[in-house]
């Protein structure tokens, strides 16, 4: 793994730096506003009641009442501080600015767009652009660029880090591809796909809450990063089934299967074939929040090819991720969408199996304004790296514990300690995130 160079604080300040996030957290917790009731005092006048920032306030006199003419906008932002115990690579990183827009287009049609601005270049990327047709709860047809449905996490949180309880994503769907910063970058699965999908609530089993999702995709601009670099895929088909019983409102149990065909590398006749399977149990009631998810991938590589570049050289072309949470490419691409570094990668023939599992538990403390939510997560990842010329898998254990404080309904401060076993490193992450 190649760690990126980071700007370190002056030597005089280094002993103080690790204490900064802790002090800031404690000061935040001690702020009396968090314990006070935000609700206004009882008032007989409805007009005197202040509008708290949750949903946009509407007036019955507003002309934009019809669903076909309403555009909703939202955004997420985050700022991160990462402090390793050895103080090598202390980072203050601006995460992403994520803007999403939604609109009814009439007759069951709607559109959704998710756009991100990423530091340091602040280029605008289209993460999702979707046209939906939903005539009923039982059927929705979606066309466009979407997030891969192979994991529950990727489907639910996308680039909205404020939505997730923790500051960082699990490694299996990390944006930190290739291993930068203190994260091993074990992203196993595709983040996006371009294609079509159908989804809905099976009408004859609606009492059981059985939901389906299936689709096909082509020309993906990213794929699994089982060997540390992005591999574009030519074709993907997937199917999900999930149970959301109405009598247990926060429970979701699901299984998923993906079949992915990568573009062939230069001088290859066939690209790699990958079968991805996964399962998840998510109970998101806040008391408790429990998420357990596992995936397995099997790559079948038919041919071998010599690479003029080493793995270290290819991964070094990836952009730095200051927070360890955001990374979404940055390669120069060819007309097929294949990155130049990918085209020179070696892939010895054979089958490669990788797998990952995480279990996360959290509990929102039922006191005061219920702002405090401690959490913990354990991750297990095993990877076979074709480029390493060995079939011995790499194994990582990552243990995390932290606290989320919802300063308001739309601002969260997360502080977490993470231990990476592969590098014997402990990192303290602090993240301030917001939803607009």
């Amino acid at each position, binding site marked *: 793994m190649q760690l990126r160079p980071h700007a370190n604080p002056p030597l005089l300040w280094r002993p103080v730096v690790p204490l900064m996030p802790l002090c800031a957290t404690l000061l935040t917790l001690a702020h009396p506003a968090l314990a006070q009731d935000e609700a206004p005092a009882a008032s007989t006048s409805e007009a005197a009641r202040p509008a708290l920032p949750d949903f946009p306030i509407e007036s*019955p006199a507003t002309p934009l009442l019809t669903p076909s003419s309403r555009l909703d906008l939202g955004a997420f932002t985050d700022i991160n501080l990462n402090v390793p115990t050895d103080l090598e690579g202390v980072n203050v990183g601006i995460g992403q600015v994520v803007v999403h827009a939604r609109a009814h287009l009439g007759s069951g049609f709607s559109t959704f767009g998710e756009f991100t601005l990423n530091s340091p270049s602040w280029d605008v990327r289209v993460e999702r652009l979707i046209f939906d047709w939903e005539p009923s709860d039982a059927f929705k047809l979606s066309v466009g660029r979407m997030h891969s449905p192979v994991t529950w996490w990727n489907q639910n949180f996308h680039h909205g880090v404020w939505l997730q309880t923790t500051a960082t994503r699990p490694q299996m769907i990390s944006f930190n591809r290739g291993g930068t910063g203190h994260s091993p970058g074990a992203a196993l699965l595709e983040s996006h796909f371009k294609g079509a999908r159908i989804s809905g609530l099976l009408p004859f089993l609606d009492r059981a809450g059985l939901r389906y999702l299936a689709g096909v995709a082509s020309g993906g601009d990213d794929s699994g990063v089982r060997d540390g670099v992005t591999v574009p895929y030519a074709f993907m088909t997937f199917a999900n089934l999930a149970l959301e019983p109405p009598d247990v409102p926060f429970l979701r149990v699901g299984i998923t299967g993906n079949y992915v065909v990568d573009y062939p590398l230069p001088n290859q006749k066939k690209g790699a074939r990958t079968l991805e399977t996964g399962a998840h149990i998510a109970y998101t009631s806040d008391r408790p929040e429990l998420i357990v998810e596992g995936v397995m991938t099997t790559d079948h590589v038919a041919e071998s090819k010599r690479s003029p570049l080493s793995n270290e050289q290819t991964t070094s072309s990836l952009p730095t991720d200051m927070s360890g949470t955001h990374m979404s490419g940055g390669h120069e691409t060819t007309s097929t969408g294949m990155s130049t570094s990918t085209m020179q990668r070696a892939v010895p023939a054979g089958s490669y199996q990788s797998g990952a599992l995480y279990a996360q538990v959290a509990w929102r403390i039922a006191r005061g304004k219920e702002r405090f939510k401690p959490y913990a997560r354990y991750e297990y990842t095993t990877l076979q790296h074709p480029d390493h010329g060995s079939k011995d898998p790499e194994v990582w254990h990552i243990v995390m514990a932290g606290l989320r404080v919802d300063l308001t309904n739309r601002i969260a401060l997360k502080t977490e300690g993470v231990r990476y076993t592969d590098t014997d490193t402990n990192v303290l992450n602090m993240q301030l995130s917001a939803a607009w």
Partner: protein
Amino acid sequence: MVRLVRHGWALAALLCCASSGAAWADGDADPTRDASGAEAPDAETPAYVVIVHPTVEREQITVDELRAIALGRQRYWKSGAPIQLVLEVQGSATRAIWVESIARMSPVQFVHYWIGATFQGRAVTGPRAVQGSRSAVQLVAALPGAIGIVPAEAAEEALKQLTVSPDPSSPLHSIVR
């Protein structure tokens, strides 16, 4: 010693978690009072009603359906018309009914849930918030497919009301008729 210090960071985060509960508490939420501190309606006299736009072809609704609507899991009426959930702003008694009694969430969690639902694509738009029961009645009357809960005295004659199917086990049984 060095190792002890290095492992101390994870421990420090855990200590933050453990210390967060007691010191900033101001008591558990009282389900018999709304967010403004007013007492919940008398158990014998349900004081709130479910109102819908007159085009909604229903006369009765179940608690499970109300919950599915509050969570955005049911987004269409049987007729195919999209459902528009109308809520009063945070701090009102009817908002507390939707959030705590029907959706079974805390106010923070409810907002969090709906921001996620729209961002995930499970719903195109979130609930429509209004200030005051009079505005809620007017918006439900103006918006096809809309549904809301208002105090009985605020519901006007021209507006359509739904009867909630009796469910003695539900806390709504004594609140909403």
